[in-house]
């Protein structure tokens, strides 16, 4: 139940929308089924900041000049080969699906990031589009939980692309080691401002809390409005998070050292471990970022290093989720803002390339063990099955059991669907939701 009851304005807007046949929530049978399962579903986004090369990871061109020195290995699925630097991921292939024919048009880091994270090109009609994390955590999350539904383990935010846009701050991510200048916070993946400042004892926090409660109750008796109630609900939730330390999710030291080693003692590796702990405790969407993929020079060494961090984190995460019976209810998304040029440049690097690149979906309701689309021997263009951003988003939504036609109302009163109309679910990978009854 939202802490902000519908205002008269919003109610009127929604009624009008419904009266004119513009459905806010999709078809009823689907909704019923989805509601059953929606509570337990989660999504983990592995965000490869900088634009990861597809030619050296999931769409190798061994034997072609564009392939460079990259070598491929067999995976658990016959006929699918990926980079030799991703052996752990190769073992997971039965639960992963590679899309090799993704084609978008943004080659600028910030614009492309906003495109990939919101599903829309930036600046369109001045709408502040919400990020995937905000959209999905709104559909899947539990607002009353002591844990935020949307967590972002990321060193920085490009253009606020992972922000909530017009959905408002109730759907903003809790950023872990985001803007903090405190090196301690970064190393231990702690939440910005979750812990009381140093020097404030537990007893002091309790006394502060008591004073706070008194002042809040006092104010509520004199000015009990919807704003007052919303403030209290939000404040209380934050206090609960502080008191339970977010249900201990961030206590990575509770895990055996062997497990922490398996994930890899990097921020990304430990971030994947944190993602598993958050999903176990009911978080709906966790983003874990690995930066450094903008390999304009010395591509091959850089990619080998990055894969050395990526592989153990990602594959251990999937092993752990599977072991705990969580893989079927957790969608995994691997992507960056664009791919890289198949043609190698003068500094042994690859440059930005959005015309034909790769992303990977897995877990959840995604039928793994497949590779969709191809880019031809040179990799310079989509040869088969072009997949646009709307198709990708539609497939992703279907994979997590969310109806892509679900709409949110923008502040201007406009209904904005999760996915642009015209986005088609890739049938081989996920079942599209039941057709809307009109």
């Amino acid at each position: 139940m939202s802490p902000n009851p519908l205002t008269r304005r919003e109610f009127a807007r929604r009624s009008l929308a419904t009266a004119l046949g513009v459905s806010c929530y999709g078809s009823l049978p689907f909704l019923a089924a989805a509601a059953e399962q929606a509570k337990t579903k989660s999504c983990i986004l592995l965000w490869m900041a900088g634009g990861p090369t597809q030619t050296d990871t999931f769409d190798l061109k061994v034997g072609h000049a564009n392939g460079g020195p990259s070598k491929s290995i067999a995976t658990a699925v016959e006929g699918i080969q990926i980079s030799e630097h991703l052996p752990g991921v190769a073992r997971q292939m039965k639960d992963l699906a590679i899309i090799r024919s993704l084609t978008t048009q943004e080659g600028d880091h910030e614009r492309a990031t906003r495109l990939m994270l919101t599903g829309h090109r930036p600046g369109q009609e001045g709408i502040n589009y919400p990020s995937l994390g905000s959209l999905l955590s709104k559909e899947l999350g539990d607002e009353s939980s002591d844990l935020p539904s949307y967590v972002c383990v990321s060193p920085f935010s490009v253009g606020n692309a992972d922000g909530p846009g017009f959905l408002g701050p109730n759907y903003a991510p809790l950023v872990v080691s985001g803007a903090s200048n405190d090196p301690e916070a970064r190393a231990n993946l702690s939440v910005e401002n979750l812990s009381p400042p140093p020097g404030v004892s537990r007893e002091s926090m309790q006394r502060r809390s008591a004073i706070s409660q008194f002042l809040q109750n006092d104010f509520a008796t004199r000015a009990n409005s919807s704003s007052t109630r919303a403030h209290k609900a939000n404040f209380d939730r934050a206090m609960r998070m502080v008191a339970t330390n977010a249900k201990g999710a961030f206590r990575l030291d509770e895990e055996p050292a062997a497990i922490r080693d398996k994930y890899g003692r990097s921020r990304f590796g430990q971030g994947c471990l944190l993602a598993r702990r958050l999903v176990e405790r009911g978080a709906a969407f966790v983003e874990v970022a690995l930066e450094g993929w903008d390999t304009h020079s010395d591509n091959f060494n850089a990619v080998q290093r990055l894969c050395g961090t990526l592989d153990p984190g990602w594959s251990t995460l999937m092993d752990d989720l599977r072991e705990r019976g969580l893989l079927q209810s957790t969608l995994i998304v691997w992507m960056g803002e664009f791919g890289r040029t198949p043609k190698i440049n003068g500094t042994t690097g690859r440059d930005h390339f959005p015309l034909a690149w790769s992303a990977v979906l897995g877990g959840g309701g995604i039928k793994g063990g497949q590779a969709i689309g191809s880019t031809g021997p040179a990799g310079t263009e989509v040869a088969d099955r072009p997949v646009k951003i709307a198709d990708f988003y539609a497939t992703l939504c279907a994979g997590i059991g969310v109806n892509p036609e679900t709409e949110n109302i923008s502040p201007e009163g406009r209904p904005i669907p999760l996915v642009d109309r015209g986005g088609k679910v890739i049938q081989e990978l996920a079942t599209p939701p039941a057709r809307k009854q009109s």
Partner: protein
Amino acid sequence: MFRNASCLSLAIILVQVSISGAQSSPDAPLRMSSESLARWIDERFAAAWQESKTLPATDIDDATFLRRAYLDLTGSIPSVSEARDFLAISSGHRRALLIDRLLNDRRRPEKHADRTAAYLATVWRRMMIPGNTPEARTAVLLEPWLAQQFVDNVPYDEVARKLVTARSEAPVMMNIPNRAVPMGSAGPAFFYQAIGGKPEAAASSVSRIFLGVRIGCAECHDHPFAAWKQKDFWGMAAFFSGIRNGVAGDSEASIRPENSTVSYSATYLGGTPAKFEKGKTPREALADWMVDDSNSLFAATAVNRVWKHLIGRGLTDSVDDLDKASAEERRILDELAVLFVKSGYDLRWLIAGICKSQLYQRECVLVEQAAGDPGPGQRPVKTLSPEQIFNSLEQALSLPIARADGGARFNGLRDQLIMRLSEAATNNPDEFRAGIPQALLLMNGKLTADATNLDQSRTLRGVVESPFLDTTLKLETLYLATFSRPPRPDEKEFLLEHIHKQTGEMQKQAFAEIFWGLLNSPEFVLQK
């Protein structure tokens, strides 16, 4: 004694006359003073409420008025000494005098009128270019120019005209940084760059901002909820065909949408095709039409926006959908708009009139008392904007302030806080939208941590270590610093008990804990 009293009242009358006289130019015809406007508002609403059998709320006390006026006009709570001074005056006219001072007084050191103008500039900027995208944040550069218009009390129709017809030769180059707020200032033409630099964006924005009408949906299809069609939208966009790539130029008054074979020529909203006199650019012609006295949407929208800023909600249900309001709903608004036009579009007069009315000085209407949201003229509990929160924190904590001449105040701490709080900003003051990150920021963030740390905090040290204040007065000072009022008996009882439970150094801690409680209480971020 009698002579002294009559001299005093004469002096008061003269002062009042000179203050309201300062609002009209020497050769303008004698027109309504702001006090008369205030009386007109009260009489008008008294009649309306009698008809609807609405019971008006009770009057607010002085402390509530003080905080309300300071926050609404200057965007900050008053200082402890300003609060003490105001609450100590016994003149019956102190409220009206305060409004006049906040609006007109440019004398150092407070420079109230300048702070008011700067805050109004922020409010208008947020209204004109809402949202929190990196592009929207660049709109901060418009604030110095806007503030100058308000300081000079440029008539509103002229401000609108300047904005609509502003020209630029080249876009303002800047790196749109991810997190920081840009520094400096840009002229009115920057408006076009900040909204996206395209004719479609200009048509949408200008119609919404100045006419209170949303035609944006009609860009691609005929609007489902209103009468606007694609030809209406593109007819307006045609005026702005010279806006391209961040340059605000002028070109011929017709436009062909991308992927379309149809060309639209400039048509005023409502269907009249534009005819251009020699030498007038399309945008100049649009400005003439827009600010014409007969254009009822223009003045009404202006009044609606000012009303919404001061009271918390507009006179009609939605200020951006004036075309959807019924004639009944618009009755009072339209009457007030006529007065506004007659005043020569004098914003300062309008603001003064509203703030001096009895209506402005009534308690907030809480949801339980009324059926549904507060009605027009009734005040909801308002949420402070990010700038109000920062400015109030700055005031309450006596933070060192960095000022850059002519531009937005540059202060890393300010920007960080405003960035985070802006994620929760809303254009409807009666909504509260903050989330966990905002709550955590105010609870455990560096600013609060320093403020409640005895070694770091000027305010706290000043209070706690003062030899002149006893415990009760110390508590009162903390209250005045944050809530602009003294504590009530039940608050004193509870908190003094808390303080006396500790001794020595720990007692200083107790004050720090109370200060923390005050800063994190709803009373600090909400406005009654």
